[in-house]
């Protein structure tokens, strides 16, 4: 049996080579499908890695609480689910924040409230500014070094703000922005500090600090009818080893605060590192859909071309059977041909996927796609499965042909 595999491979190679164009077109669907999957997974892994590195750099003992149900904690769900934080009202309250702060082992806690709307100097209105309302303790959790001035603190005025370097440049044409003012939601803020360039648009806070205007949580509430709509609570445990028990206690505390309703998730470690950016989800979901459709179309293409191949070679099947080929031999002959197609398409897609991921990353992103065996294995496995599922029926059909009927076929 094993001896025949090489024979079938040589056979498949010959037959696919003889119909190069047909083979190439057939395989395209699988190629596109696997390429899309590779792009999604390698970039997702890249984002996960960069966030993981950030957390590790920040001391590691960090957890976040986000509103929403916790049922998308697997990677695949993470890719397809919509972002929990995207819902307009949040289940998290300031009470939750202060209760978490009181848990022993929690060294710092900060709410993050993202506010929609524009930031303007009156004449200049950058379109990619983000307004973040938070508390001074954010700097105890997230590393936010200042290039100039100071961060908001308990004694600074309600109408002061800290802005990112890029926002400063966009607003005022310079990063020397201390003392300058901007307007948002009918209020005027004075810049008291400028952040150093972080260059980490992808992070677990989903805030691009380079484009952010950071204001106090009370100002944020004022824009939202006095309600703090908290998209995320960041917390730091006093040390790494305490993180697990802290997360435990946070869960308990929130459970009692929310009357047992699981409308929040506490994420730490790997789960925290998974990208939760809305744009990322949209792109990933789109690519995953494309991948699914391409693989289905590619699989059907393979099945179709294999059925054509079987009927074209009916006479050959008859001859082979008359010379001693068993049904198993014939099944393998055709199955290996469809597997060669799907695996070839998959391999091409895998390579193209990485090239595209690199192109995208180098052009638009601040991190590189990640190579790992999981992605290679998944691409291989999916290709194999497509070849098997869509190649089996034609192969069995070929093998079931009656030898004498097959020999009577003329071409």
């Amino acid at each position, binding site marked *: 049996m094993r001896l*025949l595999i090489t024979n079938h491979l040589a056979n498949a190679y010959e037959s696919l080579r003889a119909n190069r164009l047909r083979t190439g077109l057939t395989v395209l669907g699988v190629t596109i499908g696997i390429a899309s999957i590779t792009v999604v997974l390698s970039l997702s892994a890249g984002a996960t890695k960069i966030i993981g590195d950030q957390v590790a750099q920040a001391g590691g003992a960090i957890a976040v609480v986000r509103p929403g149900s916790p049922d998308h904690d697997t990677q695949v769900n993470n890719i397809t689910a919509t972002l929990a934080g995207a819902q307009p009202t949040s289940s998290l309250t300031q009470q939750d924040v202060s209760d978490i702060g009181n848990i022993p082992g929690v060294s710092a806690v900060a709410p993050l409230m993202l506010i929609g709307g524009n930031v303007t100097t009156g004449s200049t209105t950058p379109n990619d500014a983000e307004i973040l309302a938070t508390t001074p303790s954010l700097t105890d959790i997230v590393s936010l070094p200042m290039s100039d001035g100071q961060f908001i603190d308990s004694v600074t005025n309600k109408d002061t703000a800290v802005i990112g370097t890029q926002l400063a440049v966009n607003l005022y044409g310079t990063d020397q922005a201390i003392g300058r003012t901007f307007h948002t939601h009918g209020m005027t803020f004075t810049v008291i500090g400028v952040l150093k360039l972080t260059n980490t648009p992808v992070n677990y806070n989903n805030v691009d600090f380079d484009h952010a205007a950071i204001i106090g949580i009370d100002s944020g509430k004022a824009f939202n009818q006095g309600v703090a709509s908290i998209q995320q609570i960041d917390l730091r445990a006093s040390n790494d080893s305490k993180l697990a028990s802290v997360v435990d206690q946070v869960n308990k505390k929130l459970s009692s605060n929310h009357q047992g309703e699981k409308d929040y998730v506490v994420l730490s470690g790997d789960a925290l590192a998974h990208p939760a950016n809305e744009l990322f989800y949209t792109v990933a979901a789109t690519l995953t859909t494309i991948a699914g459709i391409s693989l289905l179309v590619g699989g059907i293409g393979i099945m179709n071309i294999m059925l054509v191949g079987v009927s074209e070679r009916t006479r050959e099947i008859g001859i082979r059977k*008359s*010379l001693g080929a*068993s049904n198993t031999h014939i099944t393998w002959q055709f199955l290996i041909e469809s597997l060669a197609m799907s695996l070839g398409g998959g391999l091409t897609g895998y390579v193209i996927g990485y090239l595209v991921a690199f192109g995208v990353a180098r052009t638009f992103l601040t991190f590189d796609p990640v190579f790992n065996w999981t992605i290679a294995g998944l691409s291989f496995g999916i290709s194999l499965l497509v070849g098997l599922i869509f190649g089996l029926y034609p192969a069995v059909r070929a093998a079931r042909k009656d030898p004498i009927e097959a020999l009577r076929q003329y071409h």
Partner: protein
Amino acid sequence: METDELTPPVIALSGLTKRYGLGDAEHTVLDGLDLTIDKGEFIAIMGPSGCGKTTLLNILGLLDRGDDGDYELDGRNVETMTSAGRARIRSNQIGLVFQNFNLVSRLNVIENVALPLTYQGKHKTKRLQEASKMLGTFHLSEREYYMPWQLSGGQTQRVAIARALVNNPSIVLADEPTGNLDSRSSHVIMEELADIHRRGNTIIMVTHNPDLTSYASRVIHMVDGRIDSDTKAPRPKKGELAPKKPLGTKRKPAKKPRKTKARKS
């Protein structure tokens, strides 16, 4: 009884019937054939076109099945065999030469001849070696890498025969193996079959050429799906297994053209 049990006939047909078509269109192609063939027989089947010779060979070669009656191969009823079992017999025991050659058009000559060895699980180098040797026997060494459509009719036929003989079958079923050949080439082929026969194998050959029946140990005439006459060449029973004398005399016409060939080249 005892000897019967020790060596059952290679082929035993009883009441073998094959019909085609349904209802009014139904016609009987093989009409209750009874036939026993022993190991080591060389049988020539003759008869008018359409009398069912090819159909009979296809059934004997386990490619087709009768509608009625029994076919026992080496004492085993073929109806009880699995399709894998039938394939194994085709692979190891039977060599088939088709009336219309049936070479695989996308494989070259040597690949075609090596094909039966593939299904015996032989390594590629071994396969090609044996196929090449077999092609040499039929003076086709220079055509090994030709494609089937580049061959003349006679060459195609010789390739088909080489392919049938390459796996050393104990039963050779040949459907007009010399149909397209001149008398010299015919005798080359017949010599090869006679040689296989001499080694104790069974040959069943369909032919229209009465000259060639001189190689056979038994001649069967068919008419309309029935056996019209069945004559064994008169020869001592021992001679069948070691037929030096009778075959020696019969081989005379074969040797003659061979000598002419030798003189020519």
